[in-house]
């Protein structure tokens, strides 16, 4: 009887420990923040993310995200994707790509920087903040994973060189050109009022990759244009298609990723600092490779290792 009670007690203790660990894991795991259409960002809520692709002849893309998030989460949602370096891990932003721009291609490309070691200070993505009301940029003193943007602030990533204090290589664009000027969520310039109603419903769940958007994508496909519209709307405000977009409620922002691979924002021409809104897009598909090279490599290693064992045996026998 005693042993069984002991085992029961140990089982209970282990279970409790396991639950504690699980609870820790649940609280410790970072929550995914929600990407939002640009119109949801206001002067006092949401954070604007802007990435300057002008180094590769592209526009300044900007999008919006909910605020209790780190700069890294803001930069890794709604079709945005970054790559770290082999040396520093994902916390160092080496490449940035957006699902709706050049098919999700990440810049700088592998030919420009292999992202194995920390990139030089002369060519890297520098990180700038502008708090609400600020007229100038502030060079980030924290990494993207540690900095938490304030509501109504702007995060800007530009590619180039800076010095350590951030006095050189400052952005040429001003915070006012990027920041959200509407005081209420629906008050975006090119945005019809109807879209603002729905975002209050469930933007955080629906904006995830495919599942939320799938059922809606069928009606979208019949009229492919609206899916492109939300991305172009700042560049060409008052487009005729905007009412059509309003017919499909805000959920349509999440299906828009399905068509965003057409790279609509990039095609809009404009003046030198082109600012193009990037709607939440789906993640670009990730190819995890095949197992065949691993099997081939493992067998090759086994062959060479076997040769070593054989030689060792023969030597031992001859001794």
């Amino acid at each position, binding site marked *: 009887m005693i042993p069984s009670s002991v085992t029961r007690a140990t089982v209970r203790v282990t279970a409790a420990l396991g639950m504690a660990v699980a609870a820790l894991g649940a609280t410790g795991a970072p929550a995914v923040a929600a990407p939002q259409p640009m119109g949801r960002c206001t002067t006092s809520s949401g954070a604007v993310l802007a990435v300057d692709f002008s180094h590769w002849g592209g526009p300044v893309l900007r999008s919006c995200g909910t605020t209790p998030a780190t700069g890294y*989460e803001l930069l*890794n949602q709604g079709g945005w994707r970054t790559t770290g370096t082999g040396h520093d891990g994902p916390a160092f932003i080496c490449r940035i790509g957006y699902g709706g721009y050049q098919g999700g291609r990440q810049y700088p490309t592998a030919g420009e920087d*292999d992202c*194995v070691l920390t990139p030089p200070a*002369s060519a890297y993505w520098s990180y700038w903040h502008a708090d609400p009301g600020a007229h100038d940029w502030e060079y980030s003193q924290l990494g993207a994973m540690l900095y938490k943007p304030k509501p109504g602030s702007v995060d800007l990533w530009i590619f180039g060189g800076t010095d350590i204090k951030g006095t050189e290589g400052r952005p040429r664009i001003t915070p006012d050109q990027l920041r959200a000027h509407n005081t209420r969520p629906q008050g975006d310039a090119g945005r019809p009022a109807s879209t603002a109603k729905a975002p209050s419903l469930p933007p955080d769940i629906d904006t995830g990759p495919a599942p939320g958007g799938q059922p809606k994508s069928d009606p979208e496909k019949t009229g492919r244009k609206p899916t492109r519209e939300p991305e172009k709307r700042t560049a060409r405000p008052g487009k005729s298609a905007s009412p059509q977009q309003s017919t499909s409620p805000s959920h349509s922002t999440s299906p828009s990723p399905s068509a965003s691979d057409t790279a609509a924002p990039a095609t809009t021409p404009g003046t030198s600092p082109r600012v193009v809104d990037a709607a939440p897009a789906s993640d670009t598909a990730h190819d995890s*490779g095949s197992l065949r090279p*691993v099997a081939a490599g493992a067998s090759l290693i086994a062959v060479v290792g076997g*040769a070593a064992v054989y030689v060792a045996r023969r030597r031992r026998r001859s001794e």
Partner: protein
Amino acid sequence: MTAVRRAAVEATPSPSRQAPDGDGRRLPRALHPLAWWIWALALATAVSRTANPLLLFLVLAVLGYVVTARRTEAPWARGFQYYLYMALTVVTIRVVFRAVFATGITPRDHFLFSLPHIPTPDWYAGIRIGGPVSLEAILSAATDGLRLACMLCCIGAANTLANPKRALRVLPGALYELGVAVTVAISVAPQLVQSVQRVSRARRLRAGRNRGFAALRGIVVPVLEDALERSLRLAAAMDSRGYGRAGTATRRSRRLTGALMLLGMCGLCAGAYGLLDATAPRVLGLPAMTAGAVLCVTGLRVGGRRVTRTTYRPDPWKLPEWAVAGSGVLSAVLLFTGLGYDAAELNPSIYPLTWPSLPLVPTAAILLAGAAGFLSPPPTAPTAPRPAQRRTQKADVT
């Protein structure tokens, strides 16, 4: 005791012994130590290029094969397993540190388990202690550690395969004092191990206590006495061979040597700084490096003039030496030029997780380095006096 010492001296195989090989193919001889060092350092350089676990494990297998096929029976040639343990330690430390000081957690990670999280104040924000541990973090730490471990094992293989005492002959004459010090230093550890083993065997035979603190005194005192005796003997032997002579250098030539070396070292430092820092002026890079190297070589030449040395048993540099060194260098060149494969394949992505690929050219390059296992001549056969040596030792201690 004298018989033991003589036996210990004989136990180091003489490289010039040329007994016919068992297979009757090639005459066994020791490869030039410099060839092994070039081979191993080149392979380590090649390893530094890649974080592909398949290639790294292949390098380890190749090292294991070459070492088992071509190591001698000398005391320094039995240490490869310790390098493997060290490699394992390196990987473990890396993984543990990465798990505890978890930096860079992304929402897309695959979380494995969670460590208790210790909150840190804001001014300490860069470091996070504990918290969730992801598969990606573990894997990236493990591959990074594995690369370092592979480089360690390359150096270990060179230490195992090359005779360190003969390698020191390659040192320029001006540095011969340094060479002497290093030779003495590297002979100390195997000799200490030998004398500890001998003394503890003697205690066992006398049914003395072999463990515990009391036994320690009984072992340490004879070992220290042995070491003292040995170093006195070594000093006498070196003195009789003319080591430690002040030489015939004049005051002027000594000063010239010192000035040349100092300037040369400054040049090398400035050159390395200029080459590594992208913002440094161009003049500081390659020209300073070259000037420094030239000054250093001149300094060594001038300093070496006063030391005249003769060679008793020259190490030949023949075809096998060229083949071994060449195979190592060629593999490093293939991994650095990136010909015929995508350089991204050398560093498979961990964020997001991807199965590593097996690029053809680097794989062939590493296998080519492994060809050193049969390009080099077989090692000298296990020396005959080994069983006899055991007998004398036993006879001596009883």
